[in-house]
């Protein structure tokens, strides 16, 4: 924090806001706040966040907010696009938020991370290479689809759950993978 007056005696000629004779320093909003102001800064952050999300304002019915396809994705993204993920042979399912991934590559990486423990287990048991699997999903119509065919945006708005298929079932779908 610079001292307004400055040590070279030129303090009086410095440009600043405020009446002559007062010592109000020019305050830059971006400067680091001293300890005591931490709370007010937090409050400012909170009030601006709160301002952006006033409950029930503007007064429109929620079905109206979610009525448009584009907006529907936004609304869901805000809430988290959680879908179940099952892996053939795994003892339990997982849930992921599709909204946190930017595209198919990140999704595959995320799924790899999540299920690698099962992958190893299963590959050891079956003695196979462990790498033969296909990521599929169930869409709005209930059909089983291969992940990766449609644009990402379209995928996340129609994906209801994910299924990682392994072994012989997956081989037929594997050409794209």
């Amino acid at each position: 924090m610079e001292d307004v007056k400055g040590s070279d005696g030129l303090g009086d000629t410095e440009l600043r806001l405020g009446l002559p004779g007062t010592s109000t320093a020019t305050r830059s909003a971006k400067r680091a706040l001293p300890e005591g102001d931490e709370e007010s800064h937090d409050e400012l952050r909170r009030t601006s966040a709160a301002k952006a999300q006033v409950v029930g304002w503007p007064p429109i019915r929620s079905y109206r907010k979610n009525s448009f396809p584009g907006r529907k994705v936004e609304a869901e993204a805000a809430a988290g696009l959680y879908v179940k993920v099952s892996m053939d042979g795994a003892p339990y399912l997982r849930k992921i938020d599709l909204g946190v991934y930017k595209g198919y590559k990140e999704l595959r990486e995320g799924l790899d991370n999540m299920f690698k423990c099962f992958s190893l287990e299963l590959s050891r048991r079956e003695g196979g290479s462990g790498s033969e699997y296909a990521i599929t999903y169930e869409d709005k119509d209930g059909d089983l689809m291969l992940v990766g065919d449609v644009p990402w945006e379209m995928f996340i708005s129609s994906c209801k759950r994910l299924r990682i298929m392994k072994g012989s079932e997956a081989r037929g779908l594997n050409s794209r993978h």
Partner: protein
Amino acid sequence: MVGGFRWAAMFPDEVWEHVFSFLPADADRNAAALVCRAWYRLERRSRWRVFVGNCYAVEPAAAVRRFPEVRAAAIKGKPHFADFNLVPSDWGGGAEAWVEAMAEGWPHLEELRLKRMVVSDDCLELIARCFKNFKVLSLVSCEGFSTAGLAAIAANCRYLRELDLHENEVEDNCLHWMSHFPESCTSLVTLNIACLEGEVNVSVLERLIGRCPNLKTLRLNHSVPLERLVGLLHRAPQLVDLGTGKYAAQHHPELFSRLESAIAGCKNLKGLSGFWEAGPTFLPAIYSVCEGLTSLNLSYATIQGPELIKLISRCKNLQRLWVMDLIEDEGLIAVAASCKLLQELRVFPSDPYGAAQPISLTEHGLVAISAGCPMLHSVLYFCRQMTNAALLTVAKNCPNFTCFRLCIMEPHTPDYITRQPLDAGFSAIVESCKHLRRLSLSGLLTDLVFKSIGASANRLEMLSVAFAGDGDAGLHYILSGCKNLRKLEIRDCPFGDKPLLDNAAKLETMRSLWMSSCSVTLGACRQLARKMPLLNVEVINERKRGLPLELQPDNCPVEKLYIYRTVAGPRSDTPSCVWILR
């Protein structure tokens, strides 16, 4: 009774009942019932339509007992602000208590209309089983039921005329619910399934409407593709009110011409709605019926101004128009020029949370409509800027407003030219519009506007206030004025204890008062509850920190407050976040 002379016995009961049949309004019947015991007895036996504005204002059994011959009932549950998620989801408004009492005491019930209530599938099944003559089911803004419940209604209500589902939250767990309408069901006049999320079996629907020659209103949901609309219209050319399904498809000149002729074939069409995902491609298909339209709801269609203008300019007989703000001022100017019979206008925001969207819908559009449409009496207008001058002009042009709801989307927005509060503008509205029954305020407002409202708004029945006022005086003006006020809902205003306590008696003349994020304390609520035994004072505290409400001190602030008059005493179905003070 004068000198014991039982003048009511001058005529047989049937004559008096015949006389009372000319009093359809509940208020008049209520007055007649107070004249003497004989009239009370006669009136109650001849009342067949009952409206319960607050489901907790009276015990269901008491209502059923008093009016044993009721054929049609309408009941409302949650407070209006529940529409905007201000009321906790478990607050109440359950329909079971009413449906059970009605099943017991009104076996001949034919019509049931519920609004903002929680209706379970069990309720629907009870309705389907118990009312042998059931004809009309209308559910507006309700929740708690699924398509399985609808299947029960379809299967069992042999004389069903109306199934009107308007803006409900319906769980979709029975895909083929519509197949439950038996072949013998031919009596449908209204079928509104617009709010259903799930797929609809269009072939089943085709067969259903094909055998219902009296079908006048058909509102589809967005799952019905445009191609199938053609077939449906061929089977119901007598339709008066149509809500389309999805109004978009791959452009196909053949589809367009088939759609166009199917719509043209509906010679009686007066109302159109739906239009989900509508674009400019298929809009011209409705041109042939535009001249006959009296009601047009385009509020789900993200069509831009120029297309809207082309369409609406043809609707010379339009009385009701609901549209998105994409119409912009230019579009509204065109409406003002073409739709001289317009009575009701609603303009909804296309992007309510977007910051500074370049949509040119301003006060100019509203002024243009007010100038061009002499029959306009009901307005709902979402915009981002307003001036007092514009409101003054609107007030002068439209002294016949019955409903004026203006929503300037950013709270505390002043007159953007003068930077003044909008007190003068809204004051002009209430002073000019002597028949105003409903008013919603917005923008920067001081206590002055409330002074005008309290003094001038003599017919006002419902007032909605948000982010307005300076202090207690504001609320005091309202509660000490507004002779006919029935519903008052307030959020985020600096109104405190004093005006509430000073005007406690007023609250008994109203249906209800909602206050949230104001400056009311628990102590005042306790006092009010003690003073007014005919009010339920509900304190809603969702945050649940610290002590339970009974142990909190008087100065504890109240988050949400709902006060309503009742002869039923405190209700027994309150959730944990609601306390009824006694």
